């Protein structure tokens, strides 16, 4: 708020004379307007990006027809969906049918309140920031179940039940792993979390406590994937089994609402992961933080979040779908134990006080653990080589292995 005031005051000095309510309206309204436009229009770019990335990964061109290189394709889709007739099949519970997509969108848009785009570029710096984000994103689960139940269709009901089970069971590991950076910093507010990682790349949580934090990052990313029904966990709308899961019966504007919510939630989750592990709006090197008068914090947050979204898309077009019971196995038998171990280990490390001269315990205590982990990796690397040799015999061509895979057609 005051940052925009100072910025506007330097542009138009006459602003000081305005009445108080006008100034507040302008300084709060302007960033909110910009932020809202970014939130609403970004998914259009993500849909286009996803289709192009998927196309190039599959050796095809993707949308090329509408606008140069198909840039206007998503806008055309959005307009088409707006004008398509929203069909309400018979036996549909009309009220629930309409409220469900709205609720899903509420759960997707509200976390933007706490995402820090800059030192002061944050709509509201709640001191319960991270806790607020996971609480709000649980609302969209309610929306999914309502959508599944209201559309009076067996497949939709299956999709809704599956998505409820999936999101609930992945909420627990992700909450536990959120504890890890929060314990280190001691505060829930996203602003403090980011500032604690100030001072360049090596200070990001991802690279501190070497073996623990990367594992935490990967587990949190997997849990985030499951929460947004993406990539290997997109069981609720599994095309081959459930036709289209909970939004089978939706068409027209409501269908686009579900799409909007999915892509926004993808961005929100990767933004939160960036703040927790990749140092939010902090530049890799302090000098890059500011270019002339313009703070570049928002660019860095957007760039890191977008690269995580790219990895999500990359995973979607590589991996097959996981079955429902395997999904539960991963959530309860794999992610949960790892999360618990992480919380215990980091809890112990945090208790070890940095000595008087500020010896950075947290930076070095990780190394003995590294030896342990490297030993484990070495043993399993042998297993991987064995796996590679067994694949070679199967191809029955000596020396065929990875070397020949290097050539690419044309």
């Amino acid at each position: 708020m005051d940052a925009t005031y100072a910025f506007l005051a330097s542009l138009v000095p006459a602003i000081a004379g305005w009445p108080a309510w006008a100034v507040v309206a302008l300084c709060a309204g302007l960033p909110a307007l910009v932020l809202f436009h970014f939130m609403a229009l970004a998914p259009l770019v993500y849909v286009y990006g996803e289709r192009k990335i998927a196309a190039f990964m599959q050796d095809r061109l993707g949308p090329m027809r509408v606008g140069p290189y198909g840039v206007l394709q998503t806008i055309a889709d959005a307009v088409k969906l707006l004008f398509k007739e929203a069909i309400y099949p018979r036996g549909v519970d009309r009220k629930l049918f309409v409220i469900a997509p709205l609720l899903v969108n509420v759960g997707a848009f509200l976390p933007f309140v706490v995402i820090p785009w800059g030192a002061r570029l944050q709509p509201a710096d709640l001191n319960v920031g991270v806790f607020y984000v996971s609480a709000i994103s649980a609302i969209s689960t309610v929306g999914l179940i309502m959508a599944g139940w209201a559309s009076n269709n067996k497949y939709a009901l299956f999709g809704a039940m599956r998505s409820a089970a999936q999101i609930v069971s992945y909420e627990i590991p992700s909450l536990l792993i959120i504890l890890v950076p929060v314990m280190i910093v001691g505060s829930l507010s996203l602003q403090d979390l980011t500032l604690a990682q100030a001072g360049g790349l090596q200070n990001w949580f991802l690279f501190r406590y070497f073996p623990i934090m990367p594992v935490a990052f990967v587990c949190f990313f997997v849990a985030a994937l499951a929460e947004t029904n993406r990539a290997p966990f997109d069981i609720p709308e599994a095309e081959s089994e459930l036709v289209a899961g909970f939004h089978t019966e939706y068409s027209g504007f409501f269908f686009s609402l579900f799409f909007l919510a999915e892509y926004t939630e993808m961005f929100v989750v990767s933004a939160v992961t960036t703040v927790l592990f990749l140092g939010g709006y902090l530049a890799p090197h302090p000098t890059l933080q500011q270019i002339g008068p313009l703070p570049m914090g928002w660019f860095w947050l957007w760039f890191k979040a977008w690269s995580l979204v790219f990895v999500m898309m990359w995973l979607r077009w590589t991996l097959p779908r996981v079955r429902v019971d395997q999904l539960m196995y991963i959530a309860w038998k794999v992610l949960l134990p790892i999360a618990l171990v992480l919380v215990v280990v980091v809890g112990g490390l945090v208790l070890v006080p940095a000595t008087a001269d500020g010896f950075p315990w947290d930076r070095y205590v990780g190394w003995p653990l590294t030896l342990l982990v490297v030993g484990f990796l070495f043993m399993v690397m042998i297993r991987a080589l064995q796996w590679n040799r067994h694949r070679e015999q199967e191809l029955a061509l000596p020396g065929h292995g990875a070397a020949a895979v290097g050539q690419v057609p044309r």
Partner: protein
Amino acid sequence: MKQWLEDIWEGFFTVLVGMRITWRHLFTRSVTLQYPSVKWPLPPKSRMRLFMKYEDCIGCGQCVRACPVACISMKTEKRPADAPPIWASTGQPIKLDVTAFDIDMSLCCYCNLCVYPCPTFCIYMTPEYEFATKDLTEHLYRFAKKDAQFLTEDPKSKAAPDTPTAPGGSPPPAAPAPSNPPAGPAGA
């Protein structure tokens, strides 16, 4: 415990292997062609739409009998004796007037069985595939012409002897040597 660890590692490892391949495919040239602007070069023998040269048809009906789905319908009348003698371009005299010759391409199964028994090679498949129409009846092609110019003198006597005399039985449609193998199959 070991199985649990191995599951995780193998899951992680194979996911990375898969991602490496899709990453490399990001930079491979894509193979799709933008259809209306760029058209696939069809090989010479491609069997798309049937065509029949009315001037050469001697009305024998071999193609009607050979067609498994009976999509060719033909009506012929005896040529009156005093009518001027006419020949097909391959040397057979035409004794029947083909009053109607319709091929219903909506019924045709593109099997090429009608091309082989034709003694004068007058029915053949052209590589023209863009004949979609709004009304199905427009797929019924009529080849009988009122003002057809037939050959009035025997091409065999006039032309050099090397004109392709009609070989007995089904003429072998041995593949004409295509000048250059189209880009498609060479995978270039």
